[in-house]
């Protein structure tokens, strides 16, 4: 069980959180004008890296806020967490 540092609440066990997929996948500003390929990419394609990865978590049993988390998908070591909306790290 990961120990996840919520940027708002501090370190908490993974059970308090919900994983919410890859971070920094921006919804196209004008979906209707987005080509089929690009829209499909937004919906479904994920980088799924082996190594450094930025993902979203929601502190569901805490502050209920979404935030971003930099984690290595091989070692599962968490490098940093930061609020949603901040620039990619």
């Amino acid at each position, binding site marked *: 069980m*990961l120990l996840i540092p919520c940027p708002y609440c501090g370190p908490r066990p993974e059970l308090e959180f919900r994983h919410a997929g890859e971070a920094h996948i921006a919804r196209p500003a004008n979906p209707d004008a987005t080509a*089929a390929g690009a829209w499909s990419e937004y919906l479904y394609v994920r980088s799924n890296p082996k190594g450094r990865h930025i993902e979203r978590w929601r502190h569901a049993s805490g502050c209920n806020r979404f935030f971003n988390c930099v984690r290595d998908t091989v070692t599962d070591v968490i490098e940093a967490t930061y609020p949603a909306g901040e620039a990619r790290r």
Partner: protein
Amino acid sequence: MIVRQRSGTRLRFSFDGKDYTGVAGDTLASALLANGVHLMGRSFKYHRPRGVLGAGAEEPNALVDVAGPDGRSTPNLRATTVELYDGLRATSQNRYPSLRFDLGAVNGLLSPLLGAGFYYKTFMHPRAAWATLYEPLIRRAAGLGEAPRRPDPDHYAQRYAHCETLVVGAGPAGLLAALTAAQSGERVMVVDEQAVLGGSLLAERRATIAGQPAADWLAATLATLAAMPNVQLLPRTTAFGYYQQNLLGLVERVTDHLAAPDPALPRERLWQVRARDVVLATGAIERPLVFAGNDRPGVMLASAARTYCNRYGVAVGRRVVVFTADDSAYAAALDLQAAGVAVVAIVDLRPDPSGPGVVAARAAGLTVMPGTAVIATTGHWRVTGARLSSNTTLACDALLMGGGWTPSVHLFSQSRGTLRFDAARQIYLPGTPAQRQSSVGGANGVFDLASILAPLAVAGDIPAQGGFLGLVPGSRATGFVDYQNDVKAADILQATQEGFRSIEHVKRYTTTGMATDQGKTSNMNALAIAAAALDLPLPEVGLTSFRTPYTPVTFGSIAGAARGALFDPVRKTPIHPWAEAQGAAFEDVGQWKRAWYFQHIGESMHEAVKRECLTVRRAVGLFDASTLGKIEVVGPDAAEFLNRLYTNSWSKLAVGRCRYGLMLTEAGFVLDDGVVGRLAADRFHVTTTSGGAGRVLAHMEDYLQTEFTDLQVWLTSTTEQWAVIAVQGPRARDLLAPLVEGIDLAAMPHMSVREGRIAGVPTRLFQVSFTGELGYEVNVPAGHALAVWEALWAAGAPYDACAYGTEAMHVLRAEKGYIVVGQETDGTVTPEDLGLGWAVGKAKADFVGKRSLAMMDLQATDRPQLVGLLPAHLPQEGAQIVDRADPPIGSAALGHVTSAYDSATLGRPMALALLAGGRRRMGQTVHITTATGTMPATIVAPVFYDQEGARLDA
């Protein structure tokens, strides 16, 4: 044989029905040995007679079943770790009819046929024979003990803990680490799998520490630690798993060693400990030597014999031969000799052994035979002799093996630390740790007490040094590597010859290391034999991974208290007790218990539902809709937020009015639906499906927090705050009117919401219908809901009102063609498929899911569309729809029945269905699959009742 006064309470116990006596502090193994019993089990495959190999958790042979009262039975327990208590009843396993006369032993005669992987090479013809003949035979022959036959009456507890330093293993290295950490004021936890703390010191009678006997130093150290308030000592506690960020799983055995435990105590306690630092002082495990006949009862590890002698006062034989390649076995020889056992000889593989143990042995007059091997043994139920490479046979009744020591790096490896191979010593050692953790003592390859306990002065220790891996020179390859799974050196040689080149393959092909001891005594020998056969350096053959748990862990302790009603929380509405008192049947909907139907005496379910439906259509019914999800959406941008989350438009919804809202996933499929009421310009009361409440709130929060951050909106779940009573039927208004204050019911239109009071309680009163009748949904604070329900119930008496459950609700809504998300939808359905295109605000620039609706396949004309069906009989929900009455196997389905009811209102069965291009096929006949064939049905519009909607606002 007892070599020393065994003090302590005498305990009676039985093994295979025979009564024996032991003393307090014994394990089952030590007590049996004290009674001269060596034969304790049968091996897995060849059913060979086996005695104990070890004295601890590494034991592969002596597996027993321990029975307790009330059907308690536990298979596959190691006799070496079962603590004796008065009245303990143990039986041997994997033998028929008895341990001594086991028919399965015939497998031993067939052993040449049953070599590595034999089952992959035969049993293939005829085809059906595998499953009907061969496999059942193999299954019966395999297995070890018997699973319990009765449910487990015990209970289990779980705890979480934090500390600065967690020390695993309370041997000398662990205790010193604990003392050091504790003296700096840290919170320290010390756990050890044994009943008594002390590890190797418990069997140490030679060495002195700081000038005092080891036992005295141990007692003083334990007393010091026990007196410190910042130290927690946990004996009988196994650290079985090492997880991320220094989280360790421990299991504490609380009652298994007690004759009459307090029933209030849990049997076991699972701890999850998050430690800042972890000290692994898990020691090392001695290895057997691989030679022919190394598995006869009486052949055991030297350290085990020393433990039985020094700690339990039991000699494992009267005439023992020691066969070693390691100095530490000399300590066993000396200690046994001192206890009065005849040590016939110390046979040492090494040509020129010379450590302090050798010197001491020679000084004590023991015969040391260097450069010699034991290459075979004699005996059946018990070893009777050791045949030497020098071609002499030494008579003996016990043969002690000192093959060297393997550091217990299991937990280190689980923590994802990288191991390094010490080629000189032929052992794997902890390399770079991946977490805040250190390995000390035997686990770190440090075997001498002086180094472990520095700077304390240590004298008289005979540390381990030396060791041998692989098949003993001169022996046949019939020696066992993995005792429990009956894997011989020959099996490993065969596997390499057949092309299995990695230890992972060798392990799986031969099953070495896959028994319940997980290869604690066998893995290194297997590796060495494979490496030699492949002519590769040992590390290049690989190392099998160390999987959790270190030793087997009871399912019950892992499941903990999550059983019965605590398996998953039960959610009940405030009106639940009323329904229960009325004898309602309930159904599970997510975690909710919902009243399903209210059965009157003498009624069937079908009759009850029929009565409920007709009562609602004719008069009025009450329905507990409290499980509906409710979300308060508030803020200046609330309407715009809903515009983006729902397909519908909300900007023009007037205050006091409601609208049916449809929510999509971004992929364009229906996610949820519900009525939304506007209470103020900046405030909406949103309802969701009962099962979807959490999902919808998370979905909304996701967009609000991460996409639509320009909007000022706040979301609050109010599901538990508002109870909801649906009042539906032509007399609904009449029923409510006398109880309502501050709301002009007559002036309320369909799809509106008002705030006022009902039965003296504040309410949000919706006029909405999920039945097709005039209907209201009375929202009241949950704490008042039962009182309001009872007031409404009383008010309904003059109208012959009924309470109806979810089944009638489903029938009523289906008659009206209202969908249920999760029934008419399955995550692949669009609004257009459901005929809900009218609810999609096509003029809106954007909403979640809009772009996806334009994807090619979501625009296809042959998509399933919601239709009504008038079938000949009542079909099953889920039945498939086809074009022909006799569809050939493999026919494509046109769709499926989503809902089907015997409609009392229509006086006939009806169904809703998703049917390819269905709306173009009105009036056509299709066929619905049944259990035995098909039935015809006519396609109609999916509204069966009051198509004009005249009754909604009657």
